[in-house]
């Protein structure tokens, strides 16, 4: 069982957990796809929770981002809330062409996060998507900024379609996470615990036959 280099993980200094939250159809999965694979395509609605991994280097540190993408329908809330635990960063997404997605962030999603996330220092960024459809805009940049200021979030507007600002969203978020010592500690602890767990698994006595 020696070939650890063949593992899926590779090597990294910190591992961060990031969540994408927001209403149905605001473009959470599209932003993620645009960030991960530089591609743009029509996506089906997310069922429950999905995620992607991206490794990158920022400020001389090798990072592994595990980005959890969530379903927008409120009814999945109970399921999604169990994923909030231990998140280092949360990306709140709304659609600048649909006002209700903006107000719902305030009324529903922000409260959910406050209720369930355990990392007090967790970094939040507010992202207004679909700026390519500027003619249909219903939420101004100023409104977004005011919201972000009030809730101590970072703020950006982007377009998953044109890919404008998509990389920047993640970069801003990660840089801020790196600047918070409490979170950093957390990020490396995750790694240590995983290694520990893995050892336990391999050292565990072999379970033979059936258990009934």
């Amino acid at each position, binding site marked *: 069982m020696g070939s650890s280099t063949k593992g*899926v993980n590779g090597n990294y200094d910190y591992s961060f957990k990031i969540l994408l939250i927001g209403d149905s159809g605001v473009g959470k999965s599209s932003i993620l796809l645009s960030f991960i694979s530089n591609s743009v395509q029509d996506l089906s609605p997310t069922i429950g929770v999905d995620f992607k991994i991206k490794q990158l280097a920022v400020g001389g540190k090798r990072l592994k981002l595990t980005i959890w993408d969530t379903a927008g329908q409120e009814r999945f809330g109970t399921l999604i809330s169990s994923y909030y635990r231990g998140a280092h960063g949360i990306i709140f997404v709304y659609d600048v062409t649909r006002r209700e997605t903006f107000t719902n962030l305030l009324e529903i999603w922000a409260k959910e996060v406050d209720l369930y996330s355990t990392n007090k220092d967790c970094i939040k960024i507010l992202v207004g998507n679909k700026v390519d459809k500027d003619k249909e805009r219903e939420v101004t940049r100023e409104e977004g900024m005011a919201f972000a200021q009030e809730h101590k979030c970072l703020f950006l507007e982007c377009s998953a379609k044109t890919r404008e600002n998509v990389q920047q969203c993640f970069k801003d978020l990660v840089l801020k996470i790196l600047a918070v010592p409490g979170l950093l500690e957390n990020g490396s602890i995750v790694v240590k615990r995983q290694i520990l767990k893995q050892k336990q698994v391999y050292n565990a006595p072999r379970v033979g036959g059936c258990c009934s």
Partner: protein
Amino acid sequence: MAALFMKKPSTAELDAYYPVRSECQDGIPKTRFKLRAGKTLSARRWHAAFSEDGHLDIEKVLRRIQRGGVHPSIKGVVLEFLLGCYDPNSTFEERNILRQRRREQYVTWKAECQKMVPVIGTGKFITSPIITDDGQQIEDTTKGSKRDNGVMSTSSQDSEKKVIQWKLFLHQIGLDVVRTDRALVFYESESNQAKLWTVLSVYAWMDNDIGYVQGMNDICSPMVILLDNEEDAFWCFERAMRRLRENFRCSASSIGVQTQLGTLSQIIKAIDPKLHQHLEDLDGGEYLFAFRMLMVLFRREFSFVDSLYLWELMWAMEYNPTIFSLYEGPGGATDASAEPKVDEKLLKQCGKFERNNRKTGSAEQHHNALAVFLVASVLKTKNKQLLKEAKGLDDVVKILGDTTGNLDARKACTEALRIHKKYLSKTQKP
């Protein structure tokens, strides 16, 4: 003899039955299903399986389907039988009367919905909320878009909770409809999108316990494509939901599918304790990573054609001849576990999976869906990689994600049946 000369179409020709938009070719899983002469249920075989007055030799038909699936030209009508819309042991005439009655019932429900939300049935649909959470109508002051096509309710008193609940689903359904099977040419048409939207909306009204949950669109879409008639598509979907609706039941603390995930956990624990332990160590003992597979029956792991093939195989294997009367009977049971034992003759008319259940008498105790064993088979085939390479839940999801487009529906079913047998023998021990 004719079968020998049956043209063997390539998968490309097969995909031509459900054409894909040219710009979307790259983003979708490859189709692996092949029509196989002598194995796939052909239109000719299908028609030959009916007696003069319309009785269907379901045993013969099931045997074919389980071996090689169904030819695209007859997928819709076959599905109606597999899902229990109709009794194979009835005449053409009896079924025509029943079909007529069902269509009328649907039209009645649809009319009820139309009264509340006039856009229903106009070939258009909505993607923006028409009502707030507390039941206030939303006036459209922003722009002249799709939504002012007579969307506003004609009755001002919508205080009833059920009505409000239902209206809150409508824009969510719309948001999902425009993203359902977008790669298929079929959904380039707005009227086809509206057809899917209407069927889901009427269903949400009729089954207000469940209403609408994301994922139901993935289940409904094939029915809308395979059955031209909207009413018939609705009933086919309704029957499919009889099997699946518990998965979509949402409460304050859980989602129904978690019951199946619990079963999955038991199965893996019994047949592969080492793998189960490993998953538990990675904090994956709840098997949430299999959530989507069960929720939308592998639609996202397969191409459109292949998921139809998988469903045919699954539903043929799960088939039992009493399903029709069970659904049709008083109370309309949603679970096949409550029925009496079937005799030898009926046993032959069961699919392979159901037969194994009945032989061991386990159908009476608990009715586990074949889908759960299918997930188990996927996990089992990835066993080595999971044990060796998965160091976190994220790795588990990644390894399983690699199965997209790489699964063989028939092999997966065969393996699922094997695991089912093994599980039964382990759990049946005194």
